[in-house]
């Protein structure tokens, strides 16, 4: 797992490529994206979606 934190104003080419109009914007594997802080189980559902797997941790916490 790799994590890049990108200051959008300093990398306008990336901000444009990923259509960053609001922050924080999260892009996973170039395919799945969302804006704003999300509860951990929601974040993991996006990760599962990007990884192409069905299961994700339960959202009961």
């Amino acid at each position, binding site marked *: *797992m*790799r*994590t890049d*934190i990108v200051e959008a*104003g300093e990398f306008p080419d990336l901000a444009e490529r990923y259509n960053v109009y609001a922050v924080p*914007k999260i892009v996973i594997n170039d395919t799945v994206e969302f804006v704003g802080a999300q509860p951990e189980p929601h974040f993991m559902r996006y*990760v599962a979606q990007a990884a192409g797997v069905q299961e994700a941790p339960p959202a009961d916490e």
Partner: protein
Amino acid sequence: MPFLQEHDAAFVRTRFAQELRGDVTLEFFAPVTGGLALPGQDGEIAEYVRQILAEVAALSPKIRLNVHSLMADPEAAKAFGIARTPVTAVIGAQDYGVRFYGMPAGYEFATLLDLMIAVSQGSTAIAPHTREFLTRLSQDIHVQVFVTPT
């Protein structure tokens, strides 16, 4: 003029003393060569980032700052998977794959501190079943988080 006011530096120094466990290495890559900043805004931002990191590194004996030039040190850039600058790889007992592209100022300064403490402790506050889920994933996951300083 320093980035950190004295009372901010004192606060960070205390936090590091209380929360850092293992050593932290900041591997900073700048678009410079031979100690000369390239003209233009990019070189100025990179130099400012280097100053911020140097001030932070001075606040704990557990922090080391290595400054690289992308052009002069292509081997290190390859080892850390660096293609753009300025960037800081935040490394603990191992490389957890975290890179900070650009200037860690404003709210993002707190992000840098949290990152350093997390890699130093080698753990985070994520839930056990989240950790288990991520451990089981065989796919490569690349998360990009776009931020602004304010």
